[in-house]
């Protein structure tokens, strides 16, 4: 697999960058996009990700299993996907949609099992411009939790439920307060990280 946008992104999205740009900018409570059926080969990607080594992470803020950075992945599919994410083509594609100059990425794989979560935080750290989640979870219902929740002040005003092959991006700022709600009796599988600029 090559690190070319055409090889990874569903072609329908490549034609509508203008619309996506408007949708991203106008989304509330802060700029974001949720793109369904975004990637080609999502099944293959998931099965490759599940072959990686995951390590238990547990702190005051979170509880989940995480891979090392995907640039060091064991499987060629995950390695290729990581390369594609950091490729000039894809960085330009996301830059055009978000209006942010982007120069690099980082990426890890995650599994949130039963009771796992990520409490509210805003992601702000030097260089992080756009956060992303590639959701590869299947057969989630609302009662299984695991949704990405966006805050406005102290209130959750938007919930993005885990759905297979959904690509979510949002702007990192002092407004980007978000959390991943506790997962109940399911496995939430994803890639996530940041576009840096």
């Amino acid at each position: 697999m090559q690190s070319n946008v055409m090889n990874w992104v569903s072609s329908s999205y490549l034609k509508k960058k203008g619309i996506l740009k408007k949708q991203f900018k106008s989304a509330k409570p802060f700029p974001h996009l949720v793109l369904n059926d975004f990637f080609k080969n999502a099944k293959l990607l998931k099965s490759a990700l599940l072959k990686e080594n995951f390590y238990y992470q547990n702190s005051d803020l979170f509880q989940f299993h995480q891979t090392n950075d995907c640039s060091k992945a064991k499987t060629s599919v995950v390695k290729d996907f990581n390369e594609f994410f950091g490729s000039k083509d894809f960085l330009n594609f996301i830059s055009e949609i978000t209006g942010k100059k982007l120069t690099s990425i980082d990426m890890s794989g995650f599994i949130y099992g039963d009771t796992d979560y990520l409490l509210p935080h805003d992601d702000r750290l030097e260089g992080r411009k756009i956060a992303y989640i590639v959701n590869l979870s299947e057969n989630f219902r609302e009662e299984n939790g695991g949704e990405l929740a966006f805050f406005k002040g102290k209130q959750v005003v938007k919930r993005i439920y885990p759905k297979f092959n959904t690509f979510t991006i949002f702007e990192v700022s002092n407004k980007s307060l978000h959390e991943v709600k506790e997962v109940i009796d399911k496995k939430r599988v994803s890639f996530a990280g940041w576009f840096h600029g």
Partner: protein
Amino acid sequence: MGKLNSGFDDMMDEISVLFRVRGVVSLQNILLSSALADVLGLKWKLKYEPLKFSYSFAKGPLWKNELGAFVSKIVQKNLKFKSLEWRKFKPGDYTLLYDSLPKETGFVLMIDVVPIDESWGGYSSFIDKNGEVSRVIAEKNTLTLVNAKGLRSFVKKLNHHSKGARIFLYGVLQ
């Protein structure tokens, strides 16, 4: 009339030594049944800042003088409460180690009313720069005293398996 189990009075020297050596001590069956009954009538108020904490608190019966004297005997210093309140963590509640959270400057007292299984979360974790120093898991009617000077602490998010809320009296003495 006192609210604390007087059975500990004769063991205070041993408790004091244990606390000095370990920096933490737990005493079961600390409250008399009349004190436990008082807890049922507490009126809770939510304390919620997403980036810092989510739990409820109540003022209720605090037995400040009796508790202050009891802890002073353990520590063998005349201590005063800097803060004291009841806290309730229901499933989903938590506290975080946010950037501006100061280090503790004194002794932390907790009196748990109901047991909470460690696998449900809800425990208090005391940390220093190298990681967790002490973990307090709620046990029924149990006082825990922690020498928390220089430490920071958080309450682990209570998960959906919990059969109830963690309810405890929380105070800091200096």
